[in-house]
């Protein structure tokens, strides 16, 4: 398909990024997000990139879209008028949460309000037990009576206990409501998130129901507006798990779109990893308010099964809503260029999660910001060029940064502005390093043999120091980092993960059943992918979620092709025991092992990455002198400044060094060497 023309569109909080890839070239633009009608910005951006590329929207071959609209609707509580129907006796599951306080030392703690208030939660007499048996059948007449009370609601979530084992009752509700209230949007917990643990499942279903009418309407308008412009090609949505789904599936399960933007970033990093043949990568995406960190093994981002959205209390774990969907497993912390610093009662410097945002912005912007942000520290430490920030569009004021640092940090701790800036910078870097370490350990990984790939406006300033803290010796900074997520959408495969909860103990292992579960799942997942592309090759891979009987959390155990085709007790036991010991030190002796969830992922092969050839030349670039603060020595050092375009394929320079470009600055620490690569990537390494 040499004449393909694919469009990637990422709607973020501030900007809508549009990227067109055709004939091996990328054309991109950023337009302001238009909240009232988000499709306006997409159309505007599409026209701009099509004009740049000199082609008409009618020749576009596909459009891949990711958006934070669903996330923002959940955070800002701007969703549909939604009801919950649940099992009698369990009206308050989403309100009682885990019955715990996510912050143990606050007498005035306020818990987040449930997404659906108590007077919008209704119950029906029915019950299924933990074995999937019906204890109390659901009476159709009860549903019909309840339908009367649902007039005036736009959307309804249905969550019954143990419905992940037996969805019959939830389906009966859908059937009756479809007759009685045909315009009501219905989301079933057994469809949206068929997993054990009622609080997470119900909440995920409520979130889906809450954003569904809005997303359905938005996606419908988008498709018709695009068609009006001549763009009649298929439209796909990026989902939070890093794959893409049809626009119809997205409208049914909009909760799966919540983290689609950051997921695109992870796919972007995975693509860079593939071009450079890196099998262990830490992607580091740092923007204005948050930093996202993700592990990428063998060119595939790590995935997880639960995610927390709309944290209400300083990003604190537990203060948001759990959403159990397949997600790219990343940590997101309140650490960005705009994160504000202060000194707490312990005389400790704290940074974030509060952010200066774009208004008033960091003190350096001169727009009335009086508190120091991370960007102010970067400016004072010589990492940002005051006259060339954001392509020169925003002049920076170092004196205001210094004043803010002095007022909020220096005067309280008896430090000068430079020391204060150093403290702020070190604290935010350490916060990010800690998040990365925790994430790595949770995944049983040691970061020392990882390569970091950094993108997002603020990442290139901090990535070098982060590498030092994490013991990482190689860092890549790709070009186009400002629109990384939208580029990532274009690199995502068509993928679908089919899962099934079937408990099976290894000491009562049934090979024939196991084989048939795995082949059914492969069939189901492949059929979906086939519906996106009738001709592509489809790859499948299987994994089992396994644990010792009695544990509540499983570890994923990947099966190779042989084991998938011919699963045996002995081989599965060996695989599990090995993986378990690697994670937790020692295997447990003498306990039975069980499988809880079976999963098969089907996907189209990734487009062949064009490997980046090793650099041939080895020129040395000399820049202009520039003073940079060296955080390892805690003192100023004489370094240099080089424009990014000078670092062509094979051209090298030694740190300490600032590589300047229109969007940002890349800091190369002392002891590191940067080499330009053929694909425009800056390849930064610590020798030895």
């Amino acid at each position, binding site marked *: 398909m040499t004449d393909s023309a694919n469009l990637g569109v990422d709607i973020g909080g501030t900007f809508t990024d549009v990227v067109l890839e055709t004939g091996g070239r990328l054309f991109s633009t950023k337009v302001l997000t238009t909240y009232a009608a988000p499709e306006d910005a997409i159309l505007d951006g599409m026209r701009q990139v099509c004009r740049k590329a000199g082609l008409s929207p009618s020749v576009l071959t596909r459009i891949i879209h990711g958006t934070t609209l669903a996330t923002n609707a959940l955070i800002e509580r701007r969703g549909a008028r939604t009801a919950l129907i649940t099992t009698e006796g369990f009206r308050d599951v989403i309100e009682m949460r*885990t019955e715990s306080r996510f912050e143990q030392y606050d007498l005035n703690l306020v818990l987040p309000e449930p997404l659906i208030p108590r007077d919008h939660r209704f119950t029906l007499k029915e019950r299924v037990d933990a074995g999937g048996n019906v204890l109390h059948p659901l009476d159709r007449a009860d549903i019909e009576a309840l339908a009367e009370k649902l007039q005036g609601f736009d959307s309804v979530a249905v969550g019954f206990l143990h419905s992940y084992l037996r969805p019959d009752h939830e389906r009966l509700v859908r059937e009756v409501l479809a007759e009685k209230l045909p315009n009501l949007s219905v989301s079933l917990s057994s469809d949206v998130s068929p997993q054990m643990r009622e609080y997470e499942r119900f909440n995920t279903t409520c979130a889906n129901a809450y954003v569904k009418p809005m997303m359905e309407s938005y996606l419908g308008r988008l498709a018709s507006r695009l068609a009006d412009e001549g763009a009649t090609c298929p439209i796909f949505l990026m989902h939070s798990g890093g794959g893409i789904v049809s626009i119809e599936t997205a409208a049914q399960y909009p909760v799966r779109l919540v983290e689609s933007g950051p997921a695109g970033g992870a796919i972007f990093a995975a693509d860079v990893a593939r071009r450079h043949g890196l099998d262990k990568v830490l992607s580091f995406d740092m923007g204005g308010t948050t930093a996202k960190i993700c592990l990428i093994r063998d060119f595939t981002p790590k995935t997880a099964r639960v995610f927390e959205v709309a944290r209400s209390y300083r990003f604190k774990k537990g203060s948001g809503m759990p959403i159990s969907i397949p997600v790219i497993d990343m940590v997101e912390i309140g650490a960005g260029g705009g994160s504000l610093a202060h000194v707490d009662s312990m005389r400790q410097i704290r940074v974030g999660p509060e952010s200066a945002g774009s208004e008033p912005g960091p003190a350096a912007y001169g727009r009335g910001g009086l508190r120091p942000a991370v960007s102010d520290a970067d400016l004072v430490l010589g990492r940002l060029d005051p006259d060339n920030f954001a392509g020169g569009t925003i002049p920076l004021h170092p004196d205001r940064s210094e004043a803010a640092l002095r007022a909020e940090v220096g005067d309280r701790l008896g430090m000068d502005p430079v020391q204060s800036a150093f403290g702020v910078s070190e604290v935010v870097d350490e916060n990010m390093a800690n998040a990365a370490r925790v994430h790595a350990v949770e995944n049983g990984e040691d970061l020392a043999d990882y390569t970091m790939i950094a993108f997002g406006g603020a990442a290139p300033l901090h990535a070098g120091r982060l590498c030092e803290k994490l013991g990482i010796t190689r860092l890549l900074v790709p070009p186009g980092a400002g629109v990384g997520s939208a580029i990532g959408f274009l690199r995502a495969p068509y993928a679908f993960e089919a899962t099934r909860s079937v408990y099976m103990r290894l000491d009562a292992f049934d090979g024939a059943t196991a084989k048939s579960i795995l082949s059914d799942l492969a069939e189901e997942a492949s059929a979906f992918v086939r519906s996106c592309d009738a001709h592509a090759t489809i790859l499948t891979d299987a994994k089992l979620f396994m644990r010792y009987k009695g544990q509540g959390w499983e570890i994923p155990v990947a099966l190779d092709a042989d084991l998938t085709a011919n699963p045996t007790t002995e081989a599965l036991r060996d695989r599990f025991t090995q993986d378990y010991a690697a994670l937790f030190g020692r295997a447990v002796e003498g306990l039975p092992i069980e499988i809880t969830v079976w999963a098969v992922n089907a996907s189209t092969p990734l487009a062949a990455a064009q490997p980046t050839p090793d650099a041939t030349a080895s020129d040395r670039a000399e820049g202009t002198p520039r003073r940079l603060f060296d955080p390892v020595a805690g003192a100023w050092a004489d370094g240099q400044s080089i424009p990014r375009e000078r670092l062509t394929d094979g051209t090298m320079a030694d740190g300490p060094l600032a590589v300047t470009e229109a969007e940002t600055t890349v800091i190369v620490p002392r002891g590191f060497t940067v080499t330009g690569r053929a694909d425009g990537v800056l390849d930064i390494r610590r020798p030895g």
Partner: protein
Amino acid sequence: MSVQNQIMWNRLISIVEEQAQALIRTAFSTSVREAGDLSAGIYDRRGRMLAQAVTGTPGHVNAMAAAVAHFMREIGTDTMAEGDVYVTNDPWMGTGHLHDITVVTPVFHKGQLVAYFACTAHVVDIGGRGFGADGESIYEEGLQIPIIRFADKGEVNKTLIQMLRVNTREPDQVIGDIYALAACNEVGLRRLGSMLDEYGLPDIEALADFIVDASHDATVQAIARLPRAKASNTMTTDGYATPIVLACTVETHPDHVHVDFTGCSAPDPKGINVPFIYTVAYAAYALKIAIAPEVPNNAGSLAPFRVSAPENTIVNAKRPHPVSLRHVIGHLIPDTVFGAFDQIVPDMVPAEGAGALCNFQVSLRGPNGERSEVLTFNSGGTGARPTLDGLNATAFPSGVMTMPVEATEHAGPVVIHRKELRPDSGGAGQSRGGLGQFMEVGPRDGFAMEFRAQLDRMKFPARGRKGGAPGGPTVVQLSDGTQYPAKARFQVPEGQTVQLAFPGGGGMGEPSQRDLQAVARDVRLGYVSEEAAKRDYGWEA
């Protein structure tokens, strides 16, 4: 140096969080893996707690703060070696009852002992009479594990495993949990080792001093701002067969606060007595959350809160008094302390709340003799705050979670028929007490069930403050209406279920002063019935 110490302090906090997460992911009992009844922390080589995971409960964390010193003495630091793991469930040296297993792992760096990791978790069974207050001495409450080696230079103590296997009702879960405790310390020590490598440090002595001194100073500064005063409070609670009086006197000094528990009842014949270590834990927690909540919890920040209690009282019960349900009294200590502290600093602390977790355990027996133990943790309402309502069905002072109903029903042949908020149980007031909850539980068809209630606040519900009304009292009954006391053990007749109403928190301020819009909201959401709104608040629809 200061910046570096600050960074490493944050690192220690993240290490203990990882330690706690590893425990949750590897544990077997629902109390640990679903409810988070555990704690994890790091100690310097003098045994001072430097950081604790926030995933945990104060009774564990603050009790465990003192535990490591016992391990150092009993094991002998000169005999410690790499690969060692130590264990105990001694209530007086661990965390207050035999169901809590504490595991300590020494950390060696370049051949030197530099630190310890410790963790505690509540296991589902430890033998004896089973979890409940029925024992009349510690000997009836289960297997006692003195401070011994679980692993000796990496070699697991097979004798201990054999002992546990024959002495506990759910041996796979209990043994699995001890492995999980060892695994989580292992995760911690790997991480501490790499931090020392990264910073090129031989030990954490300087860092430990920095943490302890900074935390101590910040706490003392907060205490210095308090008025100097002395105030007393008493609170009567249900007890087992006879009511128990809890009494305390709080006195502020320039550099410390002292709580003394003179005036408390004598030890009870049944297992609701509290080892002193657990009393200290909750008294210190109450003062810390009121006075210096933002200071991280460690040996330095805990030291200025001094606690004393006469021997031979229910809050300082010695061996061999039974202590299985020490939390039922222990969880009420913060309310006791708050009642005194409120007289020193008004409008800071809440009214009385449910206090004790609303736990029950059931034993199920099947037609073929199969047995199963199922434990659940649940919460009533917290007391009203000066400017905020109490929290509905939320644990305080404990930090544990409830188990998902679906997970509980997978743990044994039990059916939870109801678990939802209990309207009208929050004490009326200008700010309203938090709501308790209703639960109803029975066996699956074909199983016989024994029920063990471990509740309080039945005869003495949570009192309001400043004109606020008390919270709703606890109710335990069969579906035919037969009533039981708050602490009881009984067979559930075939075809019946157990119906429970857990207590609400007390209100604060005169109900007539409550904002009418808040009352209207309470009625709309069904937190308060129309009748109660009319009666208590003069509300008209």
